């Protein structure tokens, strides 16, 4: 059981890392200025939305 | 509209305000070194706590005005006074840190008091060295400084340094007369009674010495043959009055007379130095930057000076009257 949980955890981690790297390259302008601006906007709006939706309050260390 | 003249006047105003305002708290710092009783030292520091470091504003204003309005003079004078300026800046900064540290501890307070006192003494002496170096004349060739950084370590600037230390001690003593409570009054009176004649004597000797080492000063005395001797007379009278009335008379008298002494002294120096901004070879018009640069500075100064003056006046007013003996209630 824990095996598949670890696997899904790892998949989530890997996916996030790839997505993060993609956004990094995007914002850096590797694909051009329009994509950089677009990538920046998507990232920022996404970050704000996630921070609002998941305020992270109340979870114990 | 003589912009350089305006800028130079602002420069002179900033320096005068600095000498009068920071003078007394540097003086109190110097006197701290002569005060053996810890409680009295606390009281002395309490008297300058509310206002001491805002006074340094004025020397900075003078410095940046020099850079913006008289860049040639700035580029000559700063290397010329390289050693005293840096030592002064370090001493002033060190003073600030000592001030913060001393309130955080009781055991080590004496050490920080000494540090504060030494920082004040060194800063005062450096300022005197610079003044003396200016009066001695700065060696300029082709709009560049051509002398040695050690020129300030000649006898005349050293005498000027000592003079200023005594002068600030007079102001410091006068301030303490005004602000301190009964137990400290005898110390304050003694401080004024001792430092005022010392100040007057060293000022006098410096004046005489100056005439001998710098021919331009000699000519200045001949040029202003009424004004300068009158100022000298006023100075002597004020110093004598100060020494005499220190015990009797209103508590504000010694401090006000001290300020008066400084005003007279500064006026004399100004008369001698004008119209040079680098004594004695560069006039303020030669060293001035373009009129747009001058406008920048003057407009900025016109806005900021009233605000700083108002805020300072407010601070002094809130803390008028005697400094409470038990301090400001830690």
């Amino acid at each position: 059981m824990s095996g598949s949980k670890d696997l899904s955890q790892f998949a989530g981690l890997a996916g996030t890392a790839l997505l993060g790297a993609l956004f990094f390259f995007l914002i850096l302008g590797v694909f051009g200025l329009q994509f950089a601006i677009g990538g920046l906007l998507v990232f920022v709006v996404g970050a704000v939305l996630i921070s609002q939706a998941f305020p992270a309050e109340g979870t114990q260390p | 509209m003589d912009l350089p003249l305006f800028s130079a006047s602002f420069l002179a105003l900033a320096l005068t305000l600095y000498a009068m305002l920071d003078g007394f708290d540097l003086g109190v710092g110097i006197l701290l070194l002569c005060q053996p009783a810890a409680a009295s030292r606390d009281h002395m520091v309490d008297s300058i706590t509310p206002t001491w470091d805002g006074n340094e504003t004025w020397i900075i204003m003078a410095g940046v005005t020099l850079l913006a309005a008289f860049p040639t003079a700035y580029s000559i004078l700063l290397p010329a006074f390289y050693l005293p300026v840096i030592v002064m800046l370090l001493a002033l900064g060190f003073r600030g840190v000592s001030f913060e540290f001393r309130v955080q501890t009781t055991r080590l307070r004496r050490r920080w008091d000494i540090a504060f006192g030494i920082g004040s003494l060194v800063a005062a002496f450096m300022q005197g060295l610079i003044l003396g170096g200016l009066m001695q004349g700065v060696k300029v060739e082709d709009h560049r400084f051509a002398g040695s950084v050690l020129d300030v370590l000649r006898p005349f600037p050293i005498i000027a340094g000592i003079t200023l230390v005594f002068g600030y001690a007079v102001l410091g003593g006068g301030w303490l007369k005004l602000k301190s409570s009964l137990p400290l009054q005898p110390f304050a009176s003694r401080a004024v009674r001792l430092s005022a004649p010392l100040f007057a004597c060293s000022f006098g000797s410096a004046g005489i010495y100056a005439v001998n080492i710098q021919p331009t000063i000699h000519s200045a005395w001949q040029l202003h043959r009424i004004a300068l001797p009158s100022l000298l007379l006023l100075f002597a009278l004020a110093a004598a009055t100060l020494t005499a009335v220190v015990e009797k008379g209103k508590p504000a008298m010694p401090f006000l007379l001290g300020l008066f002494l400084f005003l007279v002294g500064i006026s004399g120096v100004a008369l001698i130095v004008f119209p040079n901004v680098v004594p004695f070879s560069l006039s303020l018009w030669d060293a001035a930057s373009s009129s747009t640069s001058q406008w920048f500075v003057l407009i900025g100064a016109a806005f900021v000076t009233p605000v700083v003056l108002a805020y300072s006046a407010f601070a002094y007013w809130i803390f008028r009257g005697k400094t409470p003996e038990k301090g400001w209630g830690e």
Partner: protein
Amino acid sequence: MKVDPSTLARIQFAFTVSFHIIFPTMSIGLASFLAVTEALWLKTKESVYLEIYRFWLSIFAMGFGIGVVTGIVLSFEFGLGFARFAEMAGPAIGPMIALEVLTSFFLEAGFLGIMLYGLHRVGPKLHFFATCMVAVGTLLSASWILSANSWMQTPAGVAIHDGHLTVVSWRDVVVNPSWPYRLPHMVTAAYLTASFMVAGVGAWYLLRGKHLHFARRTVALGTAFATVLIAGQVFIGDILYGAMVKYQPSKMQAAEGFWEEQSQSPAPYYWFIIPDQENQRNRFAVGTPYLGSIWLTHSLHGRVEGLKNTPRDRQPRMGMVFYAFRIMYGLAILMFALGVASLWLRLRGRLFASRWFLWTLVLMTPSGIIATLAGWYVAETGRQPWVIYGILRTVDAVSPVPAHALLSTLIGFVCVYSVFMSAFLIFTVRIIRRGPAEAPPYAEASGSLKNAFRPHVLDSPARVVSRQVS
């Protein structure tokens, strides 16, 4: 030992300016953070925001004070160490520096006192206004100074006759070509610095299991701000990079570690080099293949221009520029990764539970400061051998002061500044140890005039009596 005066003058200036920049960077960031925190307190009335405000207020005040003192030194040091530069550039940047000083006195005289000491003495709206004005003031000061430094990088609006500069267009002097890019870059760096400082201290408390409410809120705030800011910074940074390739090609050529006029295609991204400036080559170089073309030319096979494109007597030292740039950029990548990680952890509800993440935040507490310093080293060492790019060389700008004087004052600076730094660190650690509940509503050690407006000073019975008596 014979070190020449110009090297000593440069070392001295580098030391004092590096020390100085640490503090305004913190001040600019913390001032805005405090404004945001106070706004949140006023809006939500949650007491945790007041706690956060009071906690960071003291640290802000101290940093501000040290920034002022060390800044004063700099305004004299232009002339002390680099008289020829002051003489030449004075007409152009003198007014900007003067205005920066006057702006900060204006704000310090008025609003700083209220902000630091007026929390329960003036109405909340006035206090909030004061906090905002202080934040605005720090931004104004930053923009004047950045304008002056940017003018040194991309001098515009002046005509040169005979070794003298006259200002031809003030607009071009102030809004010079690199300023519009460098200002947002620096301001964002300051905000990132504050975000990581705040998050780092919060993470520390979480790991210790103390002040949990405060800690969770600050970690949440810090990481949220940091995530958004680092994305913006990467964007701005790349745009600035493009601008600097245009205006200061030698700097960017040195920054990437390539020597040949046209590098190989595809170009790697170098992470480690041992440059040999004498022989105009790298003795050793390690990089990621293709990444150089991708990041630097935004294509798969682009060639990067190397330092040999600049004549030898106009080349900056590659080693310094390269490694300063790598440190800054490396930290930026790390910050971005942490930002992404924080989002993922939020999604999983484990932002405060993940110990490796919290430890990384703690270690990253000073990351903004280090990255900012590294960035400034890129800017200043990359501009060499010029002090005014293309107009005045650094060696020609030095004051006629002998080496022994420079050396003794350098030693003096190091000693005294060590005392400043020790004081700052000791007091900050003390504040952190004490924790947010113990934070007073006014700033403590601040080194500023307003010391005396502390409530216990103003309210002391002795003063009340003397108020009545007079």
